[in-house]
């Protein structure tokens, strides 16, 4: 690594030879290396920043969501001996009075009307419904006195979860009064309070009471909607891709179609919602006949059709890319041994392209699962309590449920919002994971 001094050539001239290790050269090399390092660290810090945001997001969502997965229940003695209640009408009976009497009976000292009112507010206003579920599941309770677990109100539940903020503040600045705290403590001492897995959250539809609100309606709605989307966009998308890739002549028309498909993939999703409202629900009136129209508002069917329109371009592009990646030699070999064009496509090209097609479809479906904007136009952003039983029933979807809960004023909905977000993220990870597995398992490299 020594530098070479100027060399005397013997005839009075000196020559300086540039060597790899001349100081200038070394300085330049060091500079280039430094630039490389800087760029590497810049890239790394970008990745770390992105990861930090992701961790922060997950941290807050998970932290907020966890309390929503459990709920506090109170064990209330219910007097089910009334004559009006029979095994036949147990599923329709109004248990409101029985619940009130049972819960009030735990505090025989509370007599004043106003006090009774605030006492009754400790139990969920959905307790009567919960009692109906419990009794219709345990019909032999009818005619006896039974201890039944009923949901507490959101305030009481949040009190036990210690989510009501600083309780040492003056009473007027809290959502829970001293008296209510005393009652809850008494119940706790009697061993009547139980914290269990929040089954209501996983089995119920929407509700205005946060303790009775559940995600199941939205999960079913999302499922029904996606079924419709898949059933429409997968066959049409794959068929379109096969035609464009294998059969279509190369001319201006197909070029135009191709450009349009690429453009459609980038169209904001709300536009598809407007299209859906115009064509599927209202119908386009041409005077002598009406195109479309008549689809039910707020239904999974209509939502699925709109989302299918939205996913179709993505589906076609992904399928075309997958079909294109199958080497021409496969087609030539098939045609060479006498297969027809359609046999070539269905026996050889499509099976080999399938992993790519499926990956593209799953990613398209995952995008459809996260959409709310197009559904806004067709009435799926709505408060829907009943769990949809068919495609034409009103339904809502997971992201819409999150959006609506985020807008409700009751504090209890903040945890529900986070919990629903977590569930939606879970489904998305699952779908993308499936895409990764399919790709790695079936993909062929040429």
């Amino acid at each position, binding site marked *: 690594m020594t530098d070479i001094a100027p060399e005397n050539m013997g005839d009075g001239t000196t020559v300086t030879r540039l060597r790899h290790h001349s100081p200038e050269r070394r300085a330049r090399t060091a500079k280039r290396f430094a630039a490389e390092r800087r760029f590497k660290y810049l890239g790394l810090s970008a990745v770390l920043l992105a990861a930090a945001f992701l961790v922060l997001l997950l941290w807050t969502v998970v932290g907020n969501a966890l309390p929503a997965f459990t709920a506090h229940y109170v064990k209330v003695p219910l007097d089910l001996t009334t004559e009006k209640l029979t095994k036949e009408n147990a599923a*329709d009976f*109004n248990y409101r009075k029985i619940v009130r009497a049972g819960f009030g009976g735990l505090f025989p000292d509370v007599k004043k009307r106003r006090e009774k*009112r605030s006492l009754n*507010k400790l139990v969920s*206003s959905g307790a*009567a*419904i919960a009692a109906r579920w419990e009794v219709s599941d345990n019909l032999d309770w009818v005619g006896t006195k039974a201890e039944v677990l009923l949901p507490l109100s959101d305030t009481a539940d949040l009190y036990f979860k210690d989510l*009501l*903020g600083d309780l040492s*503040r003056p009473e007027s*600045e*809290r*959502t829970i009064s001293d008296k209510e705290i005393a009652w809850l403590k008494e119940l706790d001492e009697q061993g009547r309070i139980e914290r269990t897995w929040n089954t209501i959250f996983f089995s119920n539809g929407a*509700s*205005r009471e946060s303790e009775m609100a559940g995600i199941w309606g939205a999960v079913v709605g999302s499922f029904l909607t996606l*079924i*419709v989307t*898949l*059933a*429409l966009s*997968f*066959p049409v998308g*794959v068929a379109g891709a096969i035609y464009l890739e294998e059969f279509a002549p190369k001319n201006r028309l197909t070029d135009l179609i191709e450009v349009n498909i690429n453009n459609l993939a980038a169209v904001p999703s709300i536009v598809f919602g407007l299209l859906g409202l115009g064509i599927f*629900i*209202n119908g386009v009136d041409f005077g002598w006949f009406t195109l479309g*129209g*008549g*689809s*039910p*508002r*707020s239904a999974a*069917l209509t939502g*699925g059709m709109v989302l299918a329109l939205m996913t179709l371009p993505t589906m076609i592009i992904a399928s075309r890319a997958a079909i294109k990646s199958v080497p021409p030699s496969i087609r030539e070999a098939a045609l060479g041994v006498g297969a027809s064009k359609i046999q070539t496509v*269905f*026996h*050889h090209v*499509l*099976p*080999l392209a*399938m992993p790519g097609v499926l990956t593209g479809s799953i990613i398209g479906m995952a995008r459809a699962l996260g959409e709310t904007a197009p559904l806004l136009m067709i*009435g799926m*952003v*709505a*408060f*829907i*309590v*009943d769990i949809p039983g*068919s*495609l*034409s029933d*009103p339904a809502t979807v997971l992201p819409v449920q999150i959006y609506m809960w*985020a*807008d*409700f*004023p*009751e*504090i209890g909905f*903040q945890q529900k919002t986070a919990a629903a977000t977590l569930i939606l993220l879970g489904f998305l990870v699952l779908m993308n994971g499936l895409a990764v597995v399919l790709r790695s398992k079936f993909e062929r490299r040429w």
Partner: protein
Amino acid sequence: MTVSFSKNIKLTLAFTAALAGTLAMTTAAHARDQIQIVGSSTVFPFSTAVAETFGQNTKFKTPVVESTGSGGGMKLFCEGVGEATPDITNSSRRIKESEFRRCVEKGVTPVEVKIGFDGIVLGSAKGGITLALTQEQIFRALAKQIPVDGKLVANPNKMWSDVDASLPNVKIEVLGPPPTSGTRDAFVELAMESGALKFEMLAALRKEDKKAFKKVAHAVREDGAYVEAGENDNLIVQKLEANKNAVGIFGFSFLDQNSEKLTAATVEGNEPEFEKIAAGEYPISRSLFFYLKKEHVGVIPGIEEFIAEFTNEDTWGEEGYLADKGLIPLPEEDRETIAGDAKSLKPLAM
């Protein structure tokens, strides 16, 4: 592998095609047996609560409630008669004459039901800024242009103390709803307009040219002192907690639900309290309505029963469950007349 895979593909394609076929069939005529409600986002929390109780206590399906805004709801409602149109629309203001005319043209007979009051509050975080305002001061603080020495100039007030010496020396920062919101409409109409009338010059302008007056009175400043915070009131509450000097504009029900976090400015010496809004003493309050389509009664099952549930004392009375949600009930006599009119489906006349 290839062979079985291709079989699978055919199966998948056949299956999806069959599914698509059944889809097309289920679309065919399916009579609607569920009430559809659209309209105001302010009435939404109340309407949904009634819908849920109605679904639990009757044999009818739970109505579907959409939050489309008062104007959007009215547009859908007046679209015509038939299953494809909603049965009920909620509104945080009375139906406009133009809307009513459009309804009548399309053969819709609206029945009006007034359900209660809502107050609009100027809230801030507990421990933050506290204000005692008059309507004139609200106008001075938030209008785009205010009269100074007989001339309209761009609002020069930067601090609350610039508006009035009695107010704190704190920068004016107000988070409020965007122009698409009914809350914003009501706020400019109730607070800003009556504030503007306190100026002689503007009161004179109103007599001469109502439109020009409205243009001045309804213009909210755009220089950063008023920030449009979107329709999500929860977001406003969170922002207020982060910034103790900011003031937010939102409905009374949010103040009611977040009473441990928020406090509200008094207007003309009146706190936005349940009793004061009900008595009409708190000046920035408005009536809430829903309109039902008379033609759909008897066609879509359950509409009459839904009205009965809504106008029940346990629902909209002083101790009803809507009061727990922040609705301010009507006076008792009004409740009786309105419930009677609603029951007899008295058509709205304008």
